[in-house]
């Protein structure tokens, strides 16, 4: 697998909902190698901000040579990104991380908030029985239609305005979602809940984690998470989210 740093042209850039943006980048070399669950590093044009922003790959079109990312504006960097116009370019590095390991088992795909986009490409690629469980704040539900176009979808909203009121685990229980493997991405409390749920059900859960990064390629040791066992690379209880992850077997990591 080979990573590349390229200057990618922004070929589509729209807003999906309040503060959520959808960007398609021309980046053939990266698209060619990319897998669902991997991410890219996005560098800003603003020279006062030198660190890249890690953003998950939401869609891969190998034929068109494009990558799609969906992101939320949370700070200055993502806000700046949201101002970039179609036709402009952005420097990116990728594909980074391991991605999901796809198994031929009845699957539950769980996405919470801005953890929803990384699940879409997997949802498209998995060629087996699958249900997406998507957790939103309210009925402002970005990407829902696209999940529905490729499989079953179950929804939770925090305010109860649509689907199950509560979180994704509540939705799984209330709407009787079943499966023998979980793939998930979302905020840490959600991942913690999923880890517990998977243990309870005795099934595998692949969870995608987040941490502050610098290099994105496993060199600087910024982005570690606690691992249950002594890790074979670090020889301490640390795994690198950018290289050993972002996807981990929930049993391997401490949350």
């Amino acid at each position, binding site marked *: 697998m*080979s*990573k590349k*740093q390229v200057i990618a042209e922004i070929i589509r850039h729209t807003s999906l909902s309040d503060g959520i943006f959808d960007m398609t980048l021309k980046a053939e070399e990266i698209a060619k190698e990319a897998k669902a669950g991997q991410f890219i590093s996005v*560098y800003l044009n603003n*020279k*006062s*901000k*030198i*660190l*890249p922003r890690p953003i998950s790959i939401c869609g891969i079109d190998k034929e068109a040579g494009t990558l799609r990312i969906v992101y939320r504006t949370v700070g200055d960097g993502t806000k700046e990104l949201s101002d970039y116009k179609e036709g402009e370019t952005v420097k990116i*590095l990728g594909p980074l991380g391991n991605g999901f390991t796809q198994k031929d088992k009845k699957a539950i795909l769980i996405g919470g908030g801005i953890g929803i986009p990384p699940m879409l490409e997997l949802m498209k690629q998995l060629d087996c029985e699958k249900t997406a469980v998507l957790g939103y704040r309210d009925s402002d539900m970005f990407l829902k239609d696209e999940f529905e176009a490729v499989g079953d979808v179950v929804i939770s909203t925090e305010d109860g305005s649509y689907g199950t009121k509560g979180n994704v685990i509540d939705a799984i229980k209330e709407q009787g979602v079943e499966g023998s493997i979980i793939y998930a991405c979302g905020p840490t409390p959600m991942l913690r809940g999923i880890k517990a749920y998977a243990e309870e059900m005795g099934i595998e859960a692949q969870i995608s984690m987040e*941490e*502050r*990064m*610098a*290099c*994105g*390629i*496993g*060199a*600087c*040791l*910024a*982005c*570690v*998470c606690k691992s249950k066992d002594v890790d074979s*690379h*670090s*020889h*301490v*209880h*640390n795994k690198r989210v950018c*290289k050993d992850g972002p996807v981990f077997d929930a049993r391997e990591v401490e949350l």
Partner: protein
Amino acid sequence: MNLSVDIAGVTMKNPVTTGSGTFGSGEEFSEFVDLSKLGAVTTKGVANVPWPGNPTPRVAEVYGGMLNAIGLQNPGIDVFVERDVPYLKKAGATIIVNVCGKSEKDYVEVVERLSDEPVDLLEINVSCPNVKEGGIAFGQDPKALYEITKAVKAKAKQPIIMKLSPNVTDITEMAKAAVDAGSDALSLINTLTGMKIDIERRDFVLANKTGGMSGPAIKPVAVRMVYQVANAVDVPIIGMGGIATAEDALEFIMAGATAVSVGTANFINPATTLEVVDGIKAYMERHQINDINELIGCVK
């Protein structure tokens, strides 16, 4: 055109190496950089035993740079000599091993373990918290620096390069202490201690509260210190701090550095090191300079 330089008897094929801790063990960058084309690879600090490092968040972005508080996580010398040294050797790299420790004993142990290894130079990082002396780093007290240098030098088979902290009143005093104690060369600068506060959460951004500042923002301080040290002692200097372009590297060389390290800039562009080498070549061609050594310390 000659690009090669000499650090304490070791020939670097060009003056560009990597900032310890920013280039992993070299392997992580091998997709982007042919390691044999670098002047040398300087590895992440290694201790006598594995260190877990600090809690996360370990990095924070600041204007024109970053803060890090990795806390010298490393797999320990055993794994290092089994896995990383052979890898680098096979890749054809000139090898500078960065050594860290909490006590004199720690440093000496690592240095002794490396004596029969195919390692070219030892860079001794004396800017990590010194537990033995109650939190004052070896790198901020000339007497402590003298002692640790002496102890390491006595056991080292390879030439040693003491790596100096910029968080001092007088960098030349530190440089002199290290050289008097036998340091064969000097590296500078390590990071400037900094802090970032998240005003929304009203808390430190780094779990460790403070972190080391690196990147383009620190370059003027680094160039000044390299200049001061080059004019105070008589050993070769590896200059670093904010180098991202050949122009940056040349500033350090003209200030008196024999070689330079690219650190944080590797995170901006993983191929920075080789681009710096190419840029230095282009500068020399344009200015009809046949030997890089002519530029070292040429600004007085």
